[in-house]
């Protein structure tokens, strides 16, 4: 059972992570590099002169981009392991997990790990003002945990006590509120910040739906291989 979870989760995660990394390099990284020109002071927003919206962001840094690919694959491999572990629990409780249902699992994972935290802490481009990083990490983790448990209760709960608890868990982190900066002292134009948040959430949605699909498909496939009688 454990090796079935491990192989399905890691392979699905690495594949979805590679796709996520390529999407990020193409769609997100140019916005990030552009913003870093403002973060470092090479460009100044609302300075004496208007600044071109299409500056030169420099040559491709292969080491930097390769590290990003590796770490994105690592993050998604972790997501994949958690997703398949939960699929195995659902199956143990008598719920079928098909590849098609994997799409919904992926969407639920996306809401848990990206959309719900982003509702309070939008994906942050370098050079914007933000509260203390430890406080934000704490809120981020709490929000992901509460949302994940809530979605499980919505999917597998059988009565209004479970669904009511789910509603409270989904709303609580946002009623409490994410840590916000004391003053807005960011140097990056709001246009870039908004573009970055949209792109980060969009690539996340694409990668997570694929992660759900790959995870469920591989999990089913590994189960069939295990259940099939050995050919002598």
């Amino acid at each position, binding site marked *: 059972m454990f090796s079935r979870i491990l192989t399905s*989760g890691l392979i699905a995660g690495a594949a979805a992570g590679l796709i996520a990394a390529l999407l990020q390099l193409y769609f997100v990284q140019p916005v990030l590099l552009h913003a870093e020109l403002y973060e470092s002071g090479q460009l100044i927003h609302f300075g004496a002169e208007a600044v071109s919206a299409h500056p030169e962001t420099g040559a491709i840094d292969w080491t*930097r981009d390769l590290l990003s690919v590796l*770490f994105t694959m690592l993050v998604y491999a*972790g997501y994949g392991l958690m997703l398949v*572990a939960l699929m195995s629990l659902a199956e*143990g409780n008598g719920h079928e997990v098909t590849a098609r249902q994997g799409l919904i699992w992926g969407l639920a994972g996306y809401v848990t790990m990206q959309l719900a935290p982003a509702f309070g802490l939008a*994906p*942050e481009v370098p050079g914007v003002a933000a509260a203390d990083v430890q406080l934000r990490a704490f809120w981020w983790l709490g929000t992901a945990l509460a949302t994940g448990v809530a979605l499980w209760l919505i999917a597998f709960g059988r009565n209004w006590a479970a669904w009511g608890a789910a509603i409270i868990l989904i709303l609580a982190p946002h009623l409490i509120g994410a840590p916000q900066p004391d003053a807005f002292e960011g140097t990056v134009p709001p246009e870039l910040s908004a573009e970055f948040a949209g792109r980060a959430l969009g690539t996340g949605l694409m990668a997570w739906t694929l992660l759900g699909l790959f995870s469920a498909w591989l999990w089913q496939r590994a189960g069939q291989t295990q259940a099939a009688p050995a050919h002598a």
Partner: protein
Amino acid sequence: MSARTAQISAGRQSALLPAVLALAIGFGMVFVAGLVQAETLHDAAHDTRHATGFPCH
């Protein structure tokens, strides 16, 4: 206890430990790549953290 309930109950027990272990490992990977603030790790994972929506710096 019906056959189906017995089957589900057995499935639940045998599934719990491996699932908890995989959840812990998966969470550890996400935590290290996404949230640990050690400087080297932060610098190497910097772009991934921003693009994936983790709080970065």
